[in-house]
């Protein structure tokens, strides 16, 4: 029976040929390591967000009078509502972490070098979209924390002369963060960003499949890198088949991701939900110590430290553009970062600066 169903599908789709050519026939470099699986983990993390998010939509009410209550309902009354909410909340934080790690490892492995500049650019845009997801989702519970953190973030553009005020009003749909803002952020979070993310992901993964994985530049480097004068997929004379060799590494990392998620849900469920997250939003009363989520602390602290707000925002915009277009600034062929002391120092310097600003920002 199973055999017959298989044959029926096989005749009409030719799946086994696809598996043979795309999974088993798809080669990965022999010395590929676990860091190359972070991209897949980021994708799985995104899928988890999408699924749990759809579940939350079943009970969530995007209205200033009902949003907070509907979240309370999900947490306290709906059977297993807490599970899906916590998976979504913890997952959003873990996803940011995974995307950061993926990006750092791509940088460290210098995988953005020719011919993979576009892959980097699309990836950088996806990381910004990930952060926008977090930002817009943060307001939705309509708690004190979400209300005031959003107020802070949406005030930042006003540092920009002339268009800044306009931009802030556009974001908020009015002078203050209000029910109108909630509806805007809701639309962005559930309807605007998801298709955008999927399109970018499609391009990202298309490029990775088309060009092939980069080889780690460390250890025994296989051959002199050839100049890319025309399109050709990367070849690995002594490579491994993607399935099962690399697939098993990916499966392992995905298990690790779930492990981290359920560890936090089981042993530190309130990690990302402090007291202000359980108090309804009060537009006339700012709580003490409002600060953004951990991944926004570094830019937030930097913004606070620079006395001239305009300068601060210009600097941040410049850094973001530099980040997106980085492969076009770094055009040297050498792809072993250990042989490029200045780049290494820059890399470690930016990392430590980020860490210092984050820690500083949390006090």
């Amino acid at each position, binding site marked *: 029976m199973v055999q017959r169903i298989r044959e029926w599908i096989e005749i009409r789709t030719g799946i086994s040929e696809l598996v043979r050519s795309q999974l088993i026939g798809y080669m990965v470099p022999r010395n590929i390591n676990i860091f190359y699986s972070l991209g897949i983990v980021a994708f799985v993390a995104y899928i988890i967000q999408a699924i749990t998010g759809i579940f939350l939509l*079943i009970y969530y009410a995007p209205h200033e009078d009902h949003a907070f209550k509907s979240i309370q309902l999900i947490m306290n009354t*709906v*059977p297993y*509502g807490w599970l899906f909410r916590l998976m979504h909340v913890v997952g959003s934080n873990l996803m940011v972490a995974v995307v950061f790690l993926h990006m750092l490892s791509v940088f460290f492995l210098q995988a953005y070098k020719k011919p993979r500049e576009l892959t980097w650019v699309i990836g950088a845009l996806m990381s910004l979209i990930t952060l926008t997801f977090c930002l817009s989702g943060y307001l939705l519970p309509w708690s004190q924390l979400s209300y005031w953190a959003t107020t802070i973030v949406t005030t930042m553009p006003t540092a920009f002369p002339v268009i800044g005020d306009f931009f802030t009003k556009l974001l908020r749909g009015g002078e203050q963060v209000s029910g109108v803002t909630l509806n805007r952020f809701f639309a962005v979070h559930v309807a605007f960003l998801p298709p955008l993310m999927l399109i970018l992901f499609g391009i990202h993964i298309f490029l990775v499949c088309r060009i092939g994985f980069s080889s780690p530049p460390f250890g025994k480097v296989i051959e002199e890198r050839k100049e890319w004068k025309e399109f050709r997929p990367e070849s690995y004379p002594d490579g491994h088949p993607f399935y099962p060799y690399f697939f098993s590494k990916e499966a392992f990392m995905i298990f690790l991701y779930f492990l981290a998620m359920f560890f936090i849900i089981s042993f530190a469920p309130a990690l990302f939900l402090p007291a202000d997250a359980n108090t309804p939003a009060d537009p006339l009363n700012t709580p003490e110590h409002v600060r953004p989520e951990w991944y926004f602390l570094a830019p937030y602290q930097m913004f606070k430290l620079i006395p001239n707000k305009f300068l601060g925002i210009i600097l941040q915009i410049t850094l973001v553009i530099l980040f997106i277009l980085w492969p076009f600034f770094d055009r040297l062929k050498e792809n072993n970062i250990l042989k490029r002391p200045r780049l290494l120092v820059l890399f470690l310097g930016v990392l430590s600066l980020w860490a210092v600003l984050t820690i500083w920002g949390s006090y």
Partner: protein
Amino acid sequence: MKRRRFLKLLTSILGVSALSAFTYPILRFLTPLKAKGKGESIIIAKREIPIEGAKDLVIGGVPAVLINRKDKGYIILSKVCTHLGCLVKYDKEKLLLICPCHAGSFDLEGNVVSGPPPKSLEKFQFRIEGDNVRIG
């Protein structure tokens, strides 16, 4: 090859059991919450409803009507038509409950008089307590 088969099996078992562990939470999550007001009792003063008068109620989320019938006393019927779920209306002149969707009609016992509905309207229990009608 044996080792690979073992690993494959182990991964599949772990993966499938992890995923299927979500079935129960998902089913529970989707089951309807207790309707608001279920289990609460409703009290209506008799004088609110004259003879042959009626009053609309919602009992445990179900729209219903309380009718004070001449000679036969009170009755509470669900307004949900047994055909395809539209809400019937009490017609004071004809002394019938008439469905606006496909013209099904019921008498004041809830029995089908004409039209497509397959069975009688659901009845609700109540008690008379002095000057009041009490449901639940």
